[in-house]
Structure formats: C-alpha cells, structure tokens
C-alpha cells in the first residue's frame, strides 16, 4: 500500500507535513533532515527539487532554491542521496518541484526512480490536471506514484470535484490567494473558504498548506482539515539554526505543542 494511504488510514487529524529544499543549506543535508523530521514525529516530508524559476514560491523558498542550485543539487543527485532512505525512514516522502526539470530528466525515468527509491508522491504545481490526465496519469499509476493536486480559494465547487476525482492520497489545499511564505493567523475569508471546502463531500482528505508558520496556525489548519504543511518557516529555521537533530526535534515539538 502507498504510504500516503496508510498514513491517512491510521491518522485522521493533526497530520504534520514538513517541506524543505533538497541541497539546502548544504549539499549533504538532505537525507539527514528527512531522518530527523521522521524521528521528531513529522508524519510526512516534502522534498523540494530546486528550480531556477519557482513561480509559485515566496522569497524564502526562492532563496533556498537558489542556494541549493549553487550547491550543485539536481534530480539525479537527489535520487542518489535518497537511495538508502527506506532503510531508516518509514513515513511518506513526496517530491515537490516544477515541471521543466522533471521533463528534462524524463518522466518515465523519474517515475521509475521514485518507485525504486520509495517515493510515494509528487507535487508539480505547474502540471495542470488536464495535462496530467491526458499524458501522465497512466505512467504514474503504473509506478504507484501519487500526483498530489492543489486547490485554491479561487477553485469553485465543480473544479474541486474534478480535482478530487483524479486525486489520490490527499488534496493540497492552498490556504490563501498567494505564494508560499509564512504568514500570521487566518482571515475571515480563509475560514469561509475552509468551511466551504469542508462542506463538500470529498473522497480524499485535505491538508492545508502555504502560510502555516507555527503552533497556532497549524492548530487552526487542523480545525478545518486533516492537518497542515509547513514550508517557509522550516526553511528559515534551517538557514538560521542549521539542521542538527536537536534543532529539528525542537521545531517539530513546538509546532505540535
């Protein structure tokens, strides 16, 4: 069974997923960060594949992408670094990135490598659902890789149903109209949107991401969905305090509170 399904079967709420960029803050950090996150009690990790033009990301993740590229990170190296990861880590791992580097790596090759390495899903924000269905769904299915799709406050009910229909694992619910980046608490508009989505009967669970920065906003996200995704706040931590097991452990504990 795909580890994402297993997670959502065993756990219905307070799911914590943490994002960071591969090759940041240094080129050898990646596997260690995954392991520490898992040991600290994160339920899932999202590893960013750095890209020169991350158009859905705010300043913090843009910078981590730039640093990672300067450090020489690429998809090929990432798969090598993750080769042994399944000997040590059992939580679901998702790769997140943009379409062009994956296309150049080769989609089929990419899916095959994901499957060999024990990657459970991918998030490619600039791969539209329609193109996914027409060109890639068969390949993803063949290798057992889940393509996680996004919904946003602008997605209407019909669109959300369409996305739910082709989604597997979970739906990534973008919290507000904006790019990634840590923000404060939720506005009235956001709460109305969360409520609107909650009332739609979906076959997939939702996780809320974008703008979740700490204990309070995570708790807020958990009120309206199965859990939350933290990105920029964690990348900031890595930049400021490094990636020792202690630092990561304290961070995860502070989120869960």
């Amino acid at each position, binding site marked *: 069974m795909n580890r994402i399904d297993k997670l959502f079967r065993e756990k219905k709420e307070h799911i914590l997923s943490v994002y960071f960029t591969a090759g940041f803050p240094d080129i050898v950090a990646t596997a260690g960060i995954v392991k520490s996150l898992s040991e600290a009690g994160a339920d899932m990790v999202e590893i960013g594949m750095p890209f020169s*033009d991350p*158009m859905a990301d705010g300043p913090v993740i843009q910078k981590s992408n730039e640093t990672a590229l300067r450090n020489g990170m690429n998809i090929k190296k990432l798969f090598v670094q993750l080769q042994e990861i399944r000997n040590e880590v059992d939580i679901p791992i998702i790769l997140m990135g943009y379409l062009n*580097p994956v*296309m*150049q*790596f080769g989609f089929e090759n990419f899916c095959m490598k994901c499957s060999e390495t024990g990657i459970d899903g991918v998030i490619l924000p600039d791969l539209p659902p329609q*193109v996914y269905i027409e060109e890639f769904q068969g390949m993803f299915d063949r290798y057992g890789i889940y393509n996680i799709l*996004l*919904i946003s406050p602008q*997605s209407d009910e019909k669109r959300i149903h369409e996305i739910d229909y082709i989604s597997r694992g979970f739906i990534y619910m973008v919290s507000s109209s904006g790019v990634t980046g840590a923000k404060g608490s939720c506005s009235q508009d956001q709460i109305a949107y969360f409520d609107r989505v909650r009332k739609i009967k979906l076959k997939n669970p939702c996780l809320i991401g974008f703008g979740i920065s700490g204990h309070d906003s995570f708790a807020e996200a958990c009120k309206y969905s199965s859990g939350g995704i933290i990105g920029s706040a964690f990348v900031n931590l890595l930049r400021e305090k490094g990636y020792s097991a202690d630092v990561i452990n304290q961070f995860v504990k502070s989120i869960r509170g």
Partner: protein
Amino acid sequence: MKYSVDDRGYYGEFGGAFIPEMMYPNVKELQDNYLRILNSPDFISEFHSLLKHYVGRPSPLYFAPRLSEFHNTKIYLKREDLNHTGAHKINNTVGQILIAQRLGKKRIIAVTGAGQHGVATATVCALMGLKCVVYMGETDIARQEPNVLRMKMLGADVVPVVSGNRTLKDATNESIRDWISNPSDTHYIIGSAVGPHPYPDLVTRLQSVISEEMRYQLLEQTGKSDPDYIVACVGGGSNAIGSFYHYLNNENVKLVGVEAAGKGISTGETAATLVTGRPGIIHGSRTILMQDEDGQITEPYSISAGLDYPGIGPAHSFLHKTGRVIYGNVTDDEALEAAFLLTRLEGIVPALESAHALAWLGKTRFRTGDVVVVTVSGRGDKDMSAYIKYMNTRDSEENSYGSK
C-alpha cells in the same frame, strides 16, 4: 488555418497553459472570453478608433531607396517606430486594456525588460485611468533609466525585482506571483506572444494589424500584395508574428525571424533560443527555451534588452519545426552596424531590436527585383547610449588605422 492555435491552445506540440491552480481562474476567464470580446462590434470599433487616432495607424510602409540600392533589391520598411510611444508594443496594450475593462478589471500588471512594453502599458493605463504596476529587474532599471522615468511620469508604480539575476525572467516570475496573489481585480498584460494560452494567440491577433496593413500598402505601392520576403526580429516574437500573420498560409512569401546571437551562438552569451535551446516549459508555455542539462532556465544575453528572453513564443517554435518560417540570428556587432547603416542611408534611427532584422539583409543574397519588407519594430531613442558608445569606439579604431 494550419498555423493557428488549436482549440486546446496548442500549436502542434507547443503552447498550452502550464500554470499553477492558483492562476487557473484568471487564465480560464481570459480563455473563455477573449475571442468573444475581440469579435464584438464595440471592441472592434473602439480598438480601431484608438489605433487610428491615438497610436497613429496605419504605420507607413516606406520604400527605402538608398538601403535598397545598397542591398541591390527593393526594401520596404514597415514603420512601427512611428507609433505613439515608439514601438509596436502599443498595438497590443491598447487591445488588452480594452479587454481588461470589459472583464471589469481595475488594476493592471506588466513586466518589462527594455521598458518599451512598460511604457506602452503605463500609457494605456493613464489613458483609461487604471492602476498600473510594472515589474522590472533591478539590473534593467539601472540600464534603462529614461523609460523608467517615463513610466513613473505616466503614473505607474515601477517595482524593482531583486530575486534571481534581477532581469526580465525574474521580473516575469514576480508578476506571476502578483497575479496569483491578486486573483480577482487584476489583469496581467503580457507584452509578447508568450505565456500560457490564450496569451500567444491574443497578442498575435492584436499585432496582426501589422500584416493586415502591409497587404494593402504593398498592393497600392507595388501592385501586388505579396512580397518575396518579410523580415522581423524575434524576442518573444510579437512583432514578428504580427508581421507574418496574414501571410502564413501563403507559401510564396518567405518569412524570416531574426534572433539575437549576442556575442555569438557558441559563446554562451547569446539569446538565440532556437539555436541553443530545446523543448521545455517556461512561464506557462511548452516551447523551446534555453536551459542547462538539468532543465534549469539559463540567463540569455544580448546587447538589446528587448531580445534577451530565454524562451520564444510557442507559435514560433512550431513555425520553426514545420519550416514555414526561416530563423536566422545576428550578433551585437552586426546589429549595431546595421543600425548605423540605416541611419546614415535613410535618416532613420532604429531600435537595437529592429536593427537585428535589418542586419539579416546583409547576410542574404537577394535577386534584384525581390520585394523585401522589414519591420522596424521600434525607434532608437532608448538605445542612444549604446549607439554613442559604439560610435566612439569605432571612431577611435578608425583613427588608429589612420595613423598607421
């Protein structure tokens, strides 16, 4: 039409709309409405009235006698440089501002490299009283000061972009982020035939006025509406596709797009996308782009700020692949030389971008009677500092030859 966009937004394998879900409602709204608006009588009459009385169209088609003699053929210049604001960019911004109004948008965003599209956008925003935000890389702001000042005088908010290399590509990412963050009241005026569907088709249709006029102007002046060649420079490809549009299915007319080779196509400092690039995804479109082996988009180089884009409009990728259009390229130095040649022979100072199209003439052998139309996409005022620098180095070289 064989070379038009299909109903899914593709030109063969190129095009499409590779956008994050957060942008979907905006792009979908435009996809669903642009043809209806473009074909509506009130749009057509307002657009044509503005093109005539505000932009100054039709732009002249000028027979250039001395340049013709120099190249031993018949050269006609399509004078987009005489448009209000000094380039073809205004054809597109006038059309898009009318669309934005009809979609009820209150705020306009745009990206500019050389500043020509920024000025053209700020101009129509002033005209219509809409708020205007222009994203521009910090590096470009420094090297295009006169246009930055014009935009500010026109009331635009010019936002310096400090991410990445601080040029056009990074400013484009920033404007996409703005649109994601302002999903209901904002229209994004893209300045070339690039980006997600429907932009390449929308911009093409708005710029197609260039070849529409060319047809009847040629008929009047030569007795035939078909020339032997049409030559235009290609950055994203809007003046070129507008110049080609009404001739695409007429295979007797040779169409030539000229890319910027920068310091030379094998130097790494180039913007000749079709020579050095390969298919991928850039800014929402599947097209040919300059990238490294990992699929990271690389920074282009050209002396001309309007041509140094790492991608090219998807229609051009398709026209290149099918062989319908011939694509050449021209170096910085060849372009500079061509700019001086036109200036000295015809008294017309072209934009550096347009000088690339003119320089291609020197690399081709024509038959004596060939009718060649070159689109002069813009005027050279913005490029005076590059021209003066070139003039000074050339003069000092000539002096040193003289003394030997």
